[in-house]
């Protein structure tokens, strides 16, 4: 076969061409005697039919059937995560239900700076990429919403946070992030994200630590002053210390 297509001398060409023509005649006849072609949708057959061809359709190349579009769903959690319940958040919210006021106020979807209480003075979350109505619902202030406009209760705020912070949310579902209440086995009650992270200013703020432990009698704390004059330094004969040998 290789010799047939290589640039060869003219001496062997005629028999090669004859052989090639014979192949071209015999092969389709062999193809006709082959087992029937697999079921191929009509559209594909029309495409595949054209000039006489050796092509047999590949079984894997079945065209993609677009499934019916689903209703947008809220994330339902990891099946293998240990079951848990979340500490309710709504009773910690001072102004809940927000519709107490907002039922009477006219909804205004224009992004702007809201300075009146109880709105937080600044939204330090997302570096300016979003504003209040990214999470809060315009016409239902008693719920948050996902990016697919599914309502989410304030008790389940982790579903909103997990849309972007999905890696951290996975850790939280499995217990690698966040805080569990009271016991290490049995009923698993965990805190939702917003218990620790204020969603309008999520970074944890510095605070003062508890006092340090006492230094044992006879010892010195290893402060920079200690390292400048460590024990035994004056008894070493290195040039740096300049001490007596």
């Amino acid at each position, binding site marked *: 076969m290789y010799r047939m297509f290589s640039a060869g001398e003219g001496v062997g060409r005629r028999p090669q061409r004859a052989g090639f023509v014979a192949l071209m005649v015999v092969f389709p006849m062999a193809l006709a005697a082959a087992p029937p072609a697999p079921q191929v949708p009509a559209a594909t057959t029309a495409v595949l039919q054209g000039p006489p061809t050796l092509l047999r359709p590949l079984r894997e190349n079945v065209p993609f059937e677009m499934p019916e579009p689903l209703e947008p769903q809220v994330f339902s959690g990891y099946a*293998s995560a*240990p079951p848990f319940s979340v500490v309710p958040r709504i009773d910690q919210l001072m102004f809940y239900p927000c519709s107490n006021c907002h039922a009477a106020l006219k909804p205004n979807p224009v992004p702007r700076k809201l300075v009146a209480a109880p709105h937080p003075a600044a939204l330090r979350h997302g570096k300016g990429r979003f504003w209040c109505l990214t999470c809060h619902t315009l016409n239902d202030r008693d719920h948050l919403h996902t990016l697919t406009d599914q309502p989410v209760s304030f008790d389940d705020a982790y579903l909103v946070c997990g849309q972007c912070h999905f890696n*951290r949310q996975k*850790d939280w579902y*499995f*217990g*690698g*992030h*966040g*805080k*569990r209440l*009271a*016991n*290490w*086995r*049995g009923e698993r009650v965990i*805190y939702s994200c917003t218990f*620790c992270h204020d969603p309008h200013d999520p970074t*944890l703020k*510095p*605070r*003062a*630590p*508890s*006092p*340090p*432990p*006492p*230094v044992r009698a006879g010892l010195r*704390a*290893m*402060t920079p002053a200690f390292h400048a004059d460590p024990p035994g330094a004056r008894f070493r004969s290195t040039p740096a210390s300049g001490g007596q040998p």
Partner: protein
Amino acid sequence: MSRAVSEGASGDGSGPDPVSNPARRRFLGSVAATAGCAAAGAPAAAAPAGAAAASPGPAWGGSSLRDAFGSLFQDHYQRMSKDEIDAALARIERNAKRTYGVDIHCEDTKPIPGVLFGYALNISKCQGYRDCVAACVRENNQGRDSQVQYIRVLEMDSSTRNLEESEHYYNPATVPVQGKYFMPVQCMQCENPPCVKACPVKATWKEQDGIVVIDYNWCIGCRYCMAACPYWARHFNWTDPKIPAEQVNPVTNYLGNRPRPRGVVEKCHFCSQRTRKGRQPACQEACPTGARIFGNLLDPNSEIRYVLANKKIFRLKEELGTEPKFWYFTD
């Protein structure tokens, strides 16, 4: 009466001395108590013999004759019968009442079968608050004068994991500090504990749930275990622990947080009085950042197992082969 293991002592009840013959020990104890009762009861003939034996006096270090002899002849925890353990618990409760003026409840909490405790600490989350240290001291009745602390939070520079360059006595105005991370160190509850191997009297051992415990009544205070521990987890009571009465935790257990005497070594025991009842250890409950993960290593669905399988974990001094059950991880 020496409680050290003597050469011929086999503990099988056949030797002549009270150390190797528990029956003889109990007999001597009862004889001494009876003789003491008789001696003490003679001058106070009107008082019942029981009250005379139980009344505290300066001759027994503030304790009563019965309790002094009872604790002197008390056997090793792993050899005591249920009645002897109950008597020991009652002695501890009376002692605490005399020392601190507080009614405590001392229990013998047994390990939960099928549980092996493991602990993981997220150094990305630890901010160095030392809330765990304070909670541990409150929960475990450590002396406020000696200021024994089971947990030591180390401030490490971000560029190193060298413990020799850590700062133990950090006290900035606020934490966290730029360029530093914090690593609390406590007893690692090793699977291959060097302290257990070093103890000459076997006062410390590893229980079936993995916690390395100390029988404080058996410890002779030689501090070999402190020399053996590579993590500086063990602490010695140089003084009688002094605790204000309102700060004494009355829920105690024998191998855990019951009030300890002077001259014994103590250490973190994963809050066995809490964890053996399903509660979190005090340090985990106090941590506000949720940096501490605790659970059963034998449960494949536990949080600790998820962390060990999915996070970047390390242990301290891995090369020593102590197999600690305390991991550190980062997010």
